[in-house]
């Protein structure tokens, strides 16, 4: 698309170039050689993607009165420490029992529990499906497959009732297990296991490896990078859960940070000057762990994302 634009900028350069061909053609060539148009497009894209976050962060370092009277701020303010101290350590909520720190821990438990639980459960299931021939194999496959058809969002109410019936409201188990039900991880590992050369299994069988040994000695080590990739994605997905925690957790001590975002909306209700800075501060806190993980493990993350969706 941007190549298109190069062509457009390149063409008028020719007539202009006629009187002073060196400068005109030179400019067109310069634009093309240094991919100026591409860089402009990309810089615009970076501005679009980063701008809102940057403004959110800088605004969070001002005090609410300034924000209320002068709008969101581009410059760095002097209220950074008070804002983040309040967000992280001050007791909030109706019961005054929960802090930003406590919510972050809950998010961490959800993110880790979801990612690790999902990897274990789905690796085992995928191993059974790919490497065993057994009577109910196909049926099991289709049952697991069917979970891809219905996202949690379309069955929230009955899911809530089931979890309530099991007495799992306001518990980490109730928070994590239902989210693991979706088979994305199983499919990911199934796909990967199928790409492992069959000869490896044959060689292992000749080397005397049974089902357990093959899984533990060969398959798990072979899957290391895949496990890491899926872990990163699942951690981000788990950390970012919103709808399910809203339904599941009424006890504020189980709130996650992302769940806490909803609570902080109350700042608008009944306040003359809402604590904009604290709301934005919480948003920044909520995005830091998943963003850091995605940036640090970028290569693995992209690999996992692109391959798991295939």
């Amino acid at each position, binding site marked *: 698309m941007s190549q298109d634009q190069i062509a457009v900028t390149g063409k008028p350069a020719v007539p202009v170039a006629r009187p002073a061909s060196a400068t005109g053609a030179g400019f067109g060539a310069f634009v093309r050689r240094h991919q100026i148009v591409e860089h402009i497009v990309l810089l615009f894209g970076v501005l679009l993607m980063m701008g809102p976050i940057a403004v959110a962060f800088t605004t969070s370092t001002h005090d609410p009165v300034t924000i209320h009277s002068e709008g969101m701020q581009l410059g760095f303010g002097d209220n950074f420490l008070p804002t983040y101290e309040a967000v992280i350590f001050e007791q909030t909520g109706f019961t005054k029992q929960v802090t930003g720190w406590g919510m972050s821990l809950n998010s961490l438990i959800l993110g880790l529990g979801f990612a690790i639980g999902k990897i274990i459960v789905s690796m085992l299931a995928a191993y059974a499906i790919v490497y065993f021939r057994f009577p109910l194999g196909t049926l099991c496959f289709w049952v697991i497959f069917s979970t891809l058809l219905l996202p949690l969002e379309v069955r929230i109410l009955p899911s809530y009732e089931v979890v309530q019936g099991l007495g799992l409201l306001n518990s980490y188990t109730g928070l994590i297990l239902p989210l693991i039900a979706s088979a994305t991880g199983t499919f990911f590992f199934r796909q990967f296991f199928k790409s492992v*050369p069959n*000869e*490896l299994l*044959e*060689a*292992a*069988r*000749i*080397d*005397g*490896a049974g089902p357990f*040994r093959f899984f533990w*000695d*060969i398959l798990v*080590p*072979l899957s*290391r990078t895949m496990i890491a990739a899926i872990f990163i994605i699942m951690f981000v997905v788990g950390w970012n859960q919103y709808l399910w925690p809203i339904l599941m957790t009424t006890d504020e001590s189980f709130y996650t940070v992302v769940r806490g975002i909803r609570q902080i909306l109350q700042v608008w209700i009944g306040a003359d000057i809402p604590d904009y800075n604290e709301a934005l501060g919480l948003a920044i806190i909520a995005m830091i762990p998943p963003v850091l993980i995605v940036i640090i493990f970028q290569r693995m993350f992209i690999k996992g994302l692109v391959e798991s969706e295939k």
Partner: protein
Amino acid sequence: MTTLEIKQAVKRYPNGALAVKGVDVTVEEGELVVFVGPSGCGKSTLLRMVAGLESVTEGEIVLDGRLVNEVEPANRNIAMVFQNYALYPHMTVYRNLAYGLKNRGTPKAEIDAKVREAAKLLQIGDFLERKPSQLSGGQRQRVAMGRAIVRDPAIFLFDEPLSNLDAKLRNQMRLEIKRLQRRLGTAAIYVTHDQVEAMTLADRIVVLNNGEIEQIGAPAEVYGAPASTFVASFIGAPPMNLLEAQTGDGAIVIGETRIAAPVHANGPITLGIRPERAHLANGSGGADGPPMQVDTVEELGAVRLIHGSVGGQHFTANQSADEPIPGDQVRLRLLPDDLHLFDHGTGRRL
């Protein structure tokens, strides 16, 4: 002593397809037997049945006097070298070699001794701590063989082990495999679709086609007296010329030329002539064979290949590079001993 007996082995897949149709093969102690044939002929399936990687539908696999049809691959006392080597990519060379022994519960010191001995034999001692991805194709090939050797098996099974190497390395490794096998004195089955590999490596060749054995014999026998037109055209490069011909009155008739030969049959036959046995008559030198229309000449250095037709059928002849290049038309000189006669219908040797 007989190491391996395959008796009336049949492989039928669940969908009914017959891959192996009742095959009998024996492998003697220390012998290297090559299964050769085109892809889909059942040679790999047969090998995998011996390994225990494919179940045996009917028949028996007897290894060292023990019926192993239902024995797990790991307990069969075999070792296999795979086409793509199937090295464990996450393990070092050392651990690749040691893995099977470890699973058998071999003591550590013994594993170490065996691994180092095999590594020395294969000259991979310097690579023991490397991963397979850090090795060249030839080195990986050696590691795969090392993994087979440390098991000290009754029989080696090679499944097209050289097909992933380039031509030069392939020739070199072929020789090494043969030397190694001689030195160890262990029986081996070697599967390939490459007739050159089959000829050079084998003590005996088993030519397979369509799940059936076409011929079993020493390389010279298979080459010199092919049992069928299939074997005749599969073994030897360029392949044997096969011409439609008539017989009668103690002679073979190709087109309008009669060749006196001690034949008893009457009627149509298929006549086989190896290219190097089709002599081109120089000048007028008394040739009484059929005329050949020359079409293309390929120089190969020491020899040249003369392509053309005889009686309207494609024909190739070899000629020493010392001889003059023939004109458009030459006469062939054929000796009765060099003629192979095959049944016109079944293709079997007469």
